[in-house]
């Protein structure tokens, strides 16, 4: 157990150092930078013209479907990693188990394909 915890010590250290690095960068930035706030400078950038409407463009829901496809496949990929470390010893049966699992999800991908979710309309 002690080994397990010390293995994560560098991780903690690098996180702290990384945050420190960002803080140091912005502290030096604060010391060196000029500040001249003008109303025009604070405007939202829209290619040089005054901003039109609110900052919210309508986005298409198809982006969401792609994201959801990823989520489903990511949770599936998660099981591949522990499986990768053990299936050599378990042999064909284990490959079959994973094959059934992936097969079901691949059916989902084929379904999405057939329904035209993957083609941009």
């Amino acid at each position: 157990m002690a080994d397990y915890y010390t293995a994560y010590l560098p991780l903690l250290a690098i996180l702290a150092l990384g945050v420190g690095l960002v803080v140091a960068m912005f502290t030096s930035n604060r010391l060196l930078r000029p500040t001249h706030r003008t109303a025009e400078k604070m405007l939202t950038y829209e290619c040089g013209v005054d901003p039109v409407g609110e900052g919210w463009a309508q986005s298409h829901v198809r982006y969401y479907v792609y994201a959801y496809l990823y989520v489903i496949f990511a949770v599936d990929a998660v099981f591949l990693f522990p499986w990768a470390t053990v299936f050599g010893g378990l042999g064909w049966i284990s490959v079959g188990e994973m094959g059934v699992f992936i097969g079901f999800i691949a059916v989902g991908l084929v379904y999405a394909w057939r329904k035209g979710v993957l083609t941009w309309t």
Partner: protein
Amino acid sequence: MAELVEVLLRVAVVLLAFLVVPLLVGQVEHKAMAHMQSRVGPMYAGGFHGWAQLVADGVKFVQKEDVVPAAADRTVFKMAPAVALLPYLVAMVAIPIGPGLVGQDLDIGLFFVVAVMGVGVVGTLMGGWSSANKFSLLGGIRVAAQLMAYELPFVLAAASVAMAAGTLSLTGIVEAWNPWWLLWQAPAALVFFVAGLAELQRPPFDIPVADAELVFGPYTEYGGLRFALFILAEYAGIVVLSALTAVLFLGGWHGPWEDQVGWLWTLAKTGLVAFVVVWVRVAYPRLREDQLQRLAWQGLVPLVLFQLAVTAIGVVVMSS
């Protein structure tokens, strides 16, 4: 106590590499791209072939005014670059360049790297949303959709290597590496590299930041140091991707005289992959958004699923 000092030393080296190597890649990009386009690129800063150009850029960025648009969500806007940058730093801890030459060899190293790199997308979405700008928001959503579409083949290709090696430790994977993996794992290597390139939003996969359509996507409102951090994240990403490709698929420190100069082999392979990243930027035009998604879902994912089957059969046949 000595252990603690050693840990700090390792971490300090990782931090140093994180600060220096991305700059090297950036400089190589400046010069290589220039010569491919029959220009000379930066020549002035530092004297010899403009070697200090990026240092000068950094000095300039630190002195620039910190502009936060009035409509933006200030806190989120300010945090976003750091959230996009830090995952790459953390991921670098687990990448080995030689036997024992690693920030920390985690048992779960490969999965850890993949998981941590997935966090960066939150930073981009934060930047896109908090800018309160139409271009930024649409760019942010595109980035997120792209990252998610390509994260999948990326993760699956990584899983293929893990299956071949039978371990998730990055050091263990290099030790299990064998030259014939170059053939056996070739589709996975291709998928891994292409998907990684797309995740970094590098050309030809840079539609979220396409200047003709979206100004600069989620980074439109950013300037000065915060912008520099986003750019640094991109180059740190190139380094992490190249190093991972070298370690997972090109055999890391394996090569002639690997006992003496193994780490040089890792660095050379990393440099080679990084150069290909730069080359691809100059050589290929940008993909359209629909082509981008089609390549991921109808090209890379089926290919890598096929690779997984090949790997599984190969491993079981060899072990029985």
